């Protein structure tokens, strides 16, 4: 069951790489939140109940509902156009993300480790690098933020892999989530929407050396 869910997690990455509308990204983030919620429930068997409840609440409330909802609110409020506006065509995106996944699979096969379920490692690293790729190749600030949120979901998957032995690390991951959501989304994306009318990174190039 966990494997199926995590494989869906990876397939979604391919889907996102060819998505043309921003709202698809939001939906994918919500879907990832739900998958993480279920994986948390299935994976973390050895930790205290209240801690498990905390983690599951965070995944369902923050990752699956609040953040996607807030993102779509921001898109409406700032009248952000529906295109994702990548710098590279979708076909190349698809190839690059496939390459990322293949490389992580090869890397995972080179380790001989009985402690770790390799699929967690693969899903986590490929999501991390896919997020970085989105940040590097998309034009809008809001897609940068979505790429970052995707990276965080990837890191969260890896923290679940060690969650049974070190539940505190999962809690740290939650702290990171809350920190990023509050700071990046709450304060600055709101503010940037007010100050810069069209939210393109082209407008953020005024800090220069002269």
């Amino acid at each position: 069951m966990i494997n199926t869910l995590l494989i869906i997690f990876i397939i979604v990455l391919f889907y996102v790489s060819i998505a043309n509308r921003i709202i698809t990204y939001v939906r994918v983030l919500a879907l990832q939140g739900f998958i993480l919620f279920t994986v948390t429930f299935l994976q973390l068997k050895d930790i205290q109940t209240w801690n498990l409840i905390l983690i599951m609440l965070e995944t369902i409330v923050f990752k699956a509902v609040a953040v996607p909802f807030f993102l779509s609110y921001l898109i409406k409020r700032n009248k952000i156009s529906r295109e994702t506006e990548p710098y590279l065509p979708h076909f190349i995106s698809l190839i690059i993300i496939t390459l990322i996944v293949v490389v992580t699979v090869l890397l995972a096969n080179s380790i001989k480790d009985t402690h770790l379920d390799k699929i967690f490692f693969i899903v986590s690293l490929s999501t991390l690098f896919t997020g970085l790729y989105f940040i590097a190749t998309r034009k809008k600030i809001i897609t940068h933020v979505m790429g970052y949120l995707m990276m965080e979901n990837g890191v969260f998957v890896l923290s679940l892999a060690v969650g049974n032995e070190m539940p505190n690390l999962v809690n740290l991951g939650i702290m990171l989530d809350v920190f990023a959501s509050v700071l990046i989304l709450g304060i600055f994306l709101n503010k940037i929407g007010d100050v810069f009318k069209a939210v393109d990174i082209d407008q953020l190039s005024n800090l220069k050396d002269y």
Partner: protein
Amino acid sequence: MTGIYLISAFVIAVLLFIIRKTVLNNILIISFGILQVSFTLYACYYYKSSTLEYFTFDSMGLLLLMTLSIITLPALFHSYLYIERHDETPQSRSIYFSAIVVLITSITATYLANHIAVVWIFAEMTTLSASMLIYHHRNKLALEGTWKYVFICAISITFVFIGILFLSLALQHAGSDDLSFANLMANKDRLNPFWLRLAFLFIFTGFTVKLGLVPMYAAGVDAKDKAPAPAGALLSSVLMNMGFVGIFRIYAVVAQTSLFHWANIIIFIAAVLSIFVAAVYMTKVMNIKRMFAYSSIEHMGIAMLGLAAGGIGCYAAILHIILHAFVKSSLFFQFNQLYRTFQSKSIQYAGNYIKYNPVGAVVLLIGFISAAAMPPTGLFVSEFLIFRSLFEGKYIILLILVLFLLTIVIWAFGKNIMKILFLPVKGFDETKVPKINPWESLTQYLLLFTAIWLGLNPPNIFVHMIQDAVLILPK
């Protein structure tokens, strides 16, 4: 006492944020200064003991904590002057000071933490408070700088977190789950090299945003440019030292394993690229604050070279970051007086400074001589030792390359500073230059002379502490 310190510092921060009366604010700021100094004295008294389970007053932490406290007092003083002069609203004043208090407290906690997760948490808090300081002016450019800083710091902090996860995987092979540095050291032979390699790579990359090395250096430069100069002084000195501590502690573990040489190569690459980047930007930069920021990048690159070269270089690296913190913060404090004279950040519109404010101009001159590491300044000693360690380690080609890049940096830095000091600007209206009180430069002189004194004639206790701090590295 550590608990009392942390709680009362955060209480002071909250009170500063809520209360907006001038008198009460000033009392709170002074009480924070007293608190910081008394905590440092307490830490010196209980040297080498642990408190609250997660904090240890070891040599490395204590040395940097003393540096921090010495810089804190002038930083608070210059912040006070800065806020007074700029007709700030009570709101922006209280947010500014509250952020400064949180920043200094979390840097203190990071220096002393003996557990990598605690280091991580407080590093996150420095991002939060630093972003408040960068956003102080609340205009478009400040927002741009803040956004870049917050976003890149968030990515870096995620990198550090994933590094910690890999570290925990490495540690599971040793059958342990305690991520404190002491436990990592104790289990150094049983750590899985594959996971440790990934962990070091990610943690190193993550902390470079604070340390100001390639690949994440860019956000820090914008931050130091947009933050008010007294806050920029903190960002450019003690916050960079915080990145150094984060890398140093994990490097000390990696250095005990078979990955020692590999880690050194990673550090060499990042350090040389940083010096290269600094050299390239220094030749073109026209913004005085950004020039100082690039010079910081260069110095951090040199310090990391010393760390990776080993031998006397490790000693010199720590000496270098401490002296650099004093020098660079005094230059940033001086910047405000310079700005008041010329009303511009650009080197183009600044000139003949020695005529308008001779006392401040001498600070700029001594600061430049120190930052260029010419004899007889303190940084000359540490830089010379680093080059000696590179020479002894048979890194001759690297040494030649670095010396060549440093020549470019010094030439560009010197050209700009000499222009500011001695060349008159055409069409500059001298009647508008305000009279600057020479006593404001006193703190800057004290910082600069501390750097010279510590470099040329270090007290025995200081030398012993640095030697003790590098004892955990292999010979």
